[in-house]
């Protein structure tokens, strides 16, 4: 059993990898990568065996946060130190958004928001029908939930009763141009998923024990799909990025990179 403390430390190491990648590329989406990394670290550590032929899958529907996924693939030895320096470079496997035909371990090609939950449904149906007992995790952003296709999929997942499908919403409260609640108010996401027929709960997406406990409950739930609304902080872990919409899409240059490194070092990484 992985301890919350160990995962917390691992998430900090992953944060440093995210910051390094985006610094080297001088482009990327640091805010949403840093908000989702605790959740992703926990999912991979508890239920994704990247060496297995049949395994649980992770659809990063908010594909712009892919540096977080690359950081995890680096941790598990899929990506080398050198390759981590190639984010968004020509001919790199590390495209600006997940691309399975270049890097199959990202599990789904995403980037256009709103499509991942449906992709997860297809995977979950295939697993259910072939007796594959693994799960499918779909990671959405809260801004992404403006997309209508998400709600088509939410209805379908519940209609089919897909208990091997878990949707985690990284609710960091900021989308590209401002507060999600002001751009287009999602209102109560837990209530919305519940109304669509899901089992849903809300947690603190940076409290590793809460994340682990919620994932356990989600996996144990056998009556249909499960939604975890993870309340997070955009840019979490780098003080000047936290809750700062400017770091939705941004490079991390010069002094700001040094500051970020110093801040993450203080936090124990």
């Amino acid at each position, binding site marked *: 059993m992985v301890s919350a403390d160990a995962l917390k430390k691992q998430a900090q190491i992953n944060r440093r990898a995210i910051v390094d990648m985006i610094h080297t590329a001088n482009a990327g989406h640091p805010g949403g990568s840093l908000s989702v990394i605790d959740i992703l670290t926990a999912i991979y550590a508890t239920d994704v065996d990247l060496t297995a032929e049949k395994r649980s899958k992770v659809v990063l529907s908010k594909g712009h946060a892919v540096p977080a996924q690359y950081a995890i693939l680096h941790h598990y030895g899929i990506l080398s130190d050198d390759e981590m320096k190639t984010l968004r470079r020509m001919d790199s496997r590390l495209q600006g958004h997940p691309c399975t035909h270049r890097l199959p371990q990202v599990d789904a090609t995403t980037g256009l928001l709103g*499509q991942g939950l449906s*992709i997860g449904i*297809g995977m979950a149906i295939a697993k259910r029908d072939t007796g594959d007992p693994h799960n499918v995790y779909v990671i959405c952003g809260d801004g992404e939930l403006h997309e209508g296709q998400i709600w088509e999929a939410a209805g379908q997942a519940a209609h089919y009763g897909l208990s091997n499908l878990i949707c985690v919403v990284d609710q960091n409260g900021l989308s590209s141009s401002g507060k999600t609640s002001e751009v287009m108010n999602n209102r109560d996401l837990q209530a919305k998923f519940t109304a669509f027929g899901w089992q849903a709960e809300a947690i603190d997406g940076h409290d590793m024990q809460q994340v682990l406990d919620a994932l356990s409950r989600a996996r144990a739930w056998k009556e249909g799909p499960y939604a975890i609304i993870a309340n997070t902080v955009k840019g979490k872990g780098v003080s000047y990025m936290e809750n700062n919409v400017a770091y939705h899409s941004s490079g991390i240059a010069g002094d700001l990179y040094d500051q970020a490194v110093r801040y993450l070092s203080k936090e124990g990484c």
Partner: protein
Amino acid sequence: MAYSTVSLRDYVGKTLNKLYDPRMYVLDGDLSGATRSEHFRKEHPDHFIECGISETSAVSIATGLAMEGMIPFYVNFALFCTGSAWTQVRMACYAQANIKLLSTHPGMDNFPDGASHHVNEHIALLRVVPNMRIFVPQSPEELEQAVAQALAIQGPCYIRVSRDVVPVLEENLSAGQPFGGAKPIREEGGDFAIVYEGTALMAAQEGFDLLRGEGLRGKLIQVQTLKPFPDGALFDLVKDVKKIVTVENHTVLGGLGGAVSEMLAAHPSHPPLSRVGVHDEFTQSGPTAQVKARYGLDGKHVAEAAKA
């Protein structure tokens, strides 16, 4: 000349049943009766997924199934397989996902429903997406061959079949050659070449017969694969005729006529081309023959174009 006729949609579910593979799934958008995928639903209810009226999500669900090694067929009206879910189809193509789109009601085939449902843009919409393949069969036998090919190909494919009736040609029944590319149906002379896609067979055939009745002798050429486009083979068939006419149940922009224009433009000299189809306008409701005649798709338009 009188022909017996067939609507290929009647063979959609039956063909999928005949070629059933345990990896196959059929996804529907609440139109299984109209597309005839209901025949598949009856035989394989566990591999039939009713997605409701949610075209975008249906295509992405198909992508997810494909990522797990399944072979999903999304069967719907041509508009709902293409324009309604274009960005989802595009992402599936980018992912090189092994999804199959099988559409009925192309072009003006959904005649009484009017311009909202006449999808005269769908070939153009999918021709421009990398990795996509587009097949247009014109007979039940060709439909079976096209589905078999789609099953054998690892990657996205689009098969479009008529909802309106098309003539049953003797050539169809005795074809005995692999489906694909450009196929000469008749080769009687060099006065003209009518180049058509399968759902426009009725107009192409009628045009050919009218011209023949006037003493002209030409070629009737079916393009079975709209993508990849059979540039070389088609050019060899048409390069020496006096006039080329493309015939399509589609706008003349960006579809078959567009593809033939692009092909011809690569050559220093070639016969003149006229494109028969819808000329950049929205259509209206009406009886099939009247709608198609009004918007340019009948034998008379084809014959006039060949002589122009």
